[in-house]
């Protein structure tokens, strides 16, 4: 029984991280109807950036809390920047191109980014610094659920709540929902669709970066190829959970747990 619970918890942990990545897929798919193959790479870049920043800071002797915060923020910033740039370069010029064009361009971007990181950094697996300490108060149940599991679950829950709030109550969220339903109509009522699409990529990428940071510190190592596999898994999860935008992001109270459950079922 303990074993089952342990499995359940670790499944839940991983599932919730993949949910963060999957959200990026769903958001982009909802808005422009494209499977963003490069999304897995954005996640990988997030993990790499946080790795680099965290290692540099730890070499220069910063305290752990500062490292965690700075690495997380840096990962989110740079991932978003990459997501934004990828959209501008590879997808925006192809909005009115034939159906296959943006998809192939996305695959190209994915290969490009992977090899860019490979060449700029290394092809080896790198040890990711342990950012989440073992909490003393977790001692009694440590054999069932680790500290990092708790932290991950808490973080993803908070992030998802924040996203739900954003989509449901803010101006940009409303604009996003409108664009997802009917882009032409959104354009006609004066929504800056380009900006909405950019925002979608930025938010999705930031989520992926947080996912990247969490997974990397959970597993303890990274490599330039992690994005591809994670991307496929997250995408499958997105499909299982229903890739339709409104279902996953419009903030029905039950969509979060439901989604996680799907992931868990799939990944255990």
């Amino acid at each position, binding site marked *: 029984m303990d074993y089952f619970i342990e499995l359940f918890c670790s499944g839940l942990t991983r599932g919730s991280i993949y949910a963060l990545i999957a959200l990026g897929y769903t958001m982009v798919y909802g808005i422009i109807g494209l499977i963003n193959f490069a999304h897995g790479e954005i996640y990988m870049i997030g993990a*790499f950036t946080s790795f680099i920043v965290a290692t540099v800071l730890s070499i220069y002797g910063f305290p752990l809390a500062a490292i965690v915060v700075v690495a997380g923020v840096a990962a989110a910033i740079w991932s978003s920047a990459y997501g934004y740039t990828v959209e501008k370069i590879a997808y925006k010029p192809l909005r009115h191109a034939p159906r296959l064009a943006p998809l192939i361009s996305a695959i*190209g971007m994915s*290969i490009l980014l992977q090899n860019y990181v490979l060449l*700029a950094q290394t092809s080896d697996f*790198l040890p990711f610094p342990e950012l989440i300490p073992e909490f003393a108060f977790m001692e009694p149940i440590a054999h069932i659920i680790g500290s990092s599991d708790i932290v991950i679950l808490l973080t993803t829950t908070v992030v998802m709540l924040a996203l739900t709030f954003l989509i449901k109550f803010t101006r940009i969220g409303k604009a996003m929902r409108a664009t997802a339903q009917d882009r032409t109509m959104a354009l006609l009522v004066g929504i800056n669709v380009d900006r909405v699409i950019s925002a979608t990529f930025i938010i999705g990428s930031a989520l992926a970066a947080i996912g990247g940071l969490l997974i990397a510190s959970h597993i303890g190592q990274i490599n330039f190829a992690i994005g591809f596999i994670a991307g496929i898994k997250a995408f499958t999860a997105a499909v299982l959970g229903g890739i339709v935008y409104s279902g996953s992001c419009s903030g029905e109270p039950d969509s979060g747990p439901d989604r996680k459950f799907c992931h868990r079922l799939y990944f255990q």
Partner: protein
Amino acid sequence: MITVKEVKRSLLVSLWFVFLTFPLMVIKVNPYERTVSWRWSNMVYVAIGTFVISLLAKAWFVRKERRMARQQDSCHARIPIIQRILQRPGYRYPLAAFLLGAVLAFPHLFSTYQANIMTTALMYIVLGLGLNIVVGVAGLLDLGYVAFYAVGAYSYALLNLHFGLGFWTVLPVGGLLAALFGVLLGFPVLRLRGDYLAIVTLGFGEIIRLILENWNAFSKGPSGISNIPRPGFFGLEMSLDQAMIYMYYLMIGLLLVTIFVVNRLQDSRLGRAWLALREDEIACQAMGIDKTRTKLIAFSLGAFWAGLIGVIFAAKTTFVNPASFTFMESAIILSIVVLGGMGSIVGVILGALILVLLPEYLRALSEYRMLAFGAILVAMMIFKPEGLIANVRRIYCYQGRKSNTALKNDE
């Protein structure tokens, strides 16, 4: 042509990229020795590189816009020069004869090593032509094409290992087995929308590879199967060099057959239906085309060719293991089709030659090969989505009643 405004814009772009690439290009940490190296020179390269690329891209778009404007004035579509040459029968046949001569003499003019590389290129051309039916003509994005290639290769390796079957027996069997896999996969999957099809085929490719990697009893796992015999020639003993050259001619033969068949298929009732399907599925169905069946035929035909080349691949390298059948392989074949121009046979040939031979001859750049692949795919889609050679439509001749009555009037 280049205004100050554009230079400013390019400067901004290059600044943005400097920021973007900063952590990955400039910082390099060694987590074991706990050292950091700051590679500031990379920053300069990025700045200059992106500045130049940005200017060039801008210039290209400006030119394209002007050309479009001119085209609308003159109302004449511009046909690329290669196509104009190919279209004229007066040029076409001497050109074909020359090419054939060059191709046949190739192994005798150059070393066996060169012939070997050429054989690889030829294999990719045929793979490209096969995938071209699926992606280029029928518009089905198949990202797991390599799976069928693997089926072909492993069917030769395994049938030979267990039953001692020879190359010529397995060649059609491998093709048919791959086609069968195509039907089995295609039947449930071809109902899906384009992008779902892409992801499912991608998954299928990975599954096949993982099966081959993990099912040791069946496929001998990651270590693969070696000592696969080369193709025989009426029981003749051949040296390694001779076998290579024989392989080369065999591929030439297969390529010619493939070109012939693909050409005829494209220019047929079926080929038209594929094209129509690529453009509008609903209209197609309303015109009485059985969507699933027509797609399935394209899908399994493509798989058939992949299977054939798989068998040849196993025979050529005399060794197969799962590492030869990764997603990257699918991506390369796909980029051949896309680079060449979807649906165009000449385009696919050009695309394959460029993508296979270029990295081969530019060894120094070989580590940038995949980077270039990605960049080319993106750049092609942005700058020239129709590929190097756009497909031109055939002009049909009317021979019905009108000409008959015209004749009668003449009499």
